[in-house]
């Protein structure tokens, strides 16, 4: 297990994750970030807005960004 931190970037505004989550590997981290991105988007949609340009940076305990998950890659969008 390793601790991964999920920093939320929304149009230049960063919500830094100071707690992190213990996960088996980065692949589990990616799944966690995708679920989180969808959850944050759900909250936005209920307020009648959606930005697909936001992203979540997955960092290790030293602060190095290991992977970036873009909101637009967390959903299949059709009908635009």
């Amino acid at each position, binding site marked *: 297990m390793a601790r991964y931190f*999920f920093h*939320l970037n929304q149009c230049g505004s960063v919500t830094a*994750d*100071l*707690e992190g*989550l213990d996960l088996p590997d980065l692949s589990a981290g990616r799944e966690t970030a995708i679920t989180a991105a969808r*959850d*944050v988007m759900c909250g936005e949609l209920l307020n009648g807005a959606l930005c697909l340009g936001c992203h979540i940076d997955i960092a290790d305990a030293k602060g190095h960004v290991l992977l970036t998950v873009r909101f637009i890659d967390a959903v299949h969008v059709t009908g635009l």
Partner: protein
Amino acid sequence: MAADDIIEAWFRKLTRLMDLDGEELAALTALSFRREETEANRYLVKEGTQVTRCCLLVDGYVARHKMSRNGRRQIVSFHMSGDMLDLQHTLLSRADHNLQTMTRAVVAWIPITELAQVASRFPRVAAAFARDALIDAAIFREWVLNVGARDAKTRIAHMLCEFVQRREALGIASVEAVELPFSQEQIGDATGLTSVHVNRMLRELTEEGAFARTGRHYCIADWRKLQAIADFNPAYLHQMA
């Protein structure tokens, strides 16, 4: 004979539920208590097991929760000092949910047969237990409303309002002195949100002045504001929880 801290925590809660007399309190004091100190994240009761003893929480915090098939945890209530965690097992012996410590905790185990005997000998003790269970049900109703009908920020604010209100009512701490003991993940499991979403909403509540943040820790900055944001009316706690 029970240790002082066990009796103090329990009676502080019980006497809010019912005005019990000396004989009733003496019968409760004479129960067999087995004191135990536990680590955080320990299961006290697991779903599906036969329960033969009731757990009284003396110190620390415990979550009542259920698991979905895909492994998602839904916390359905939080418990604190003085709460009988599984009074329902005096009448329903098979656990239909889990009880897990959220922090280090001190608990006291009481044999169910002894509890049931005291309840049948003293109707007002039984009424206190029934009231406790009814208020638990009132809290569950409020939580269904919370996860089903409130947006993410209101939901988190409401859950935390209830926690702060109950702690203050028990005389554990003043509102301002409450440092939230929950991780983002725990708040998320109680509100049906991911920890990233919880972190985002805690930031918003902090920017609006309801919370103050020092490093990783949050405390209440403006109790009235938090209650207003949360749509919080403590009537469902019946001034006894």
